């Protein structure tokens, strides 16, 4: 365990090992997302109340889930960076913010497109929707800090603090549908109870959720690897890498 922790501190080691993981995550996420989408669009039964607009759930729920867990990972990583001064943790925070922002945006937008035929409105200032919008602004805040502060370690500290403070919003999003009287329906899934949907509806959703997480892993690896290259450009191992495998590396 501790040797793993120490190795994580070495950007070179991380760059090499992540290069091996990357194709697996990429292929797995591509397969899961394609299978999940086709299943969701063409084979899952229509909802008896919502009809076919219900198919939006298959991209909406995983996006919202990922948007929140990405923020939690970012905050934990920020804390690790603050406490143990681990470079990889700082890099993770920087890399996660734009991905999280894009999935929060996707969750909000697919929610709006779903809301129109289901609730009759694109947007309403309801607790769930508003707290998700705040999540989007928190991600924008981290991105703004990263681009405004030149010094990487100062930027990392500021982002980590914002991510940790922003964690307050996560339980608010989760319990918003219970604490307030909202238009948004309660959670479709919980870990403790049996799904209220029939199997042929929730299995494709599960496929999509796993696909989204694999996709996140793929993109976060791409971004952290880029950031490592930039930060370590003066080191010998990056120089060597630039000299020899230029064409081979460019493919990834």
């Amino acid at each position, binding site marked *: 365990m501790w040797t793993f922790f120490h190795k994580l501190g070495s950007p070179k080691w991380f760059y090499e090992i992540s290069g091996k993981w990357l194709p697996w995550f990429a292929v797995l996420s591509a397969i899961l*997302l394609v299978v999940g*989408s086709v299943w969701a*669009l*063409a*084979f*899952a*039964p*229509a909802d008896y109340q919502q*009809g*076919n*607009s219900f*198919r*939006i759930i298959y*991209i*909406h729920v995983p*996006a919202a889930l990922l948007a929140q867990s990405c923020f939690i990972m970012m905050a934990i990583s920020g804390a690790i960076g603050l406490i143990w001064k681990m470079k990889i943790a700082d890099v993770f925070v920087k890399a996660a913010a*734009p*991905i999280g922002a*894009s*999935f929060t*945006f*996707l969750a909000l*937008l*697919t929610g709006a*497109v*779903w809301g*129109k*035929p289901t609730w009759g409105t694109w947007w309403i200032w309801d607790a769930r929707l508003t707290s998700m919008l705040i999540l989007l602004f928190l991600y924008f805040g981290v991105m703004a800090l990263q681009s405004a502060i030149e010094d990487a370690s100062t930027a990392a500290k500021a982002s980590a603090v914002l991510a940790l403070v922003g964690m307050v919003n996560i339980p608010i999003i989760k319990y918003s549908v219970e604490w307030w009287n909202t238009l948004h329906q309660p959670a479709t899934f919980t870990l403790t109870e049996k799904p209220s949907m029939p199997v042929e509806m929730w299995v494709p959703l599960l496929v999509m959720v796993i696909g989204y997480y694999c*996709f996140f892993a*793929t*993109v976060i690896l*791409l*971004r952290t*690897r*880029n950031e490592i*290259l*930039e930060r370590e*450009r003066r080191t010998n191992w*990056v*120089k060597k890498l*630039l*000299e020899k495998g*230029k064409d081979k*590396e*460019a493919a*990834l």
Partner: protein
Amino acid sequence: MNFENFSDFLAMGGHGLYVWMAYGVALIVFVANVAGPVLKKKDILKKHAQRLKREKMTS
């Protein structure tokens, strides 16, 4: 298959516009998420390979 034919599939029981709009935006978000860092990597490799070359020539 949940639909009788292809035009039924496109119509989505009258909700076609919403369903396809949502999936379209999702596709854009996914593609942009991959394209961004992949293009950035090419840029980084090119930039630093050039810098390395320059440094070797001057030294």
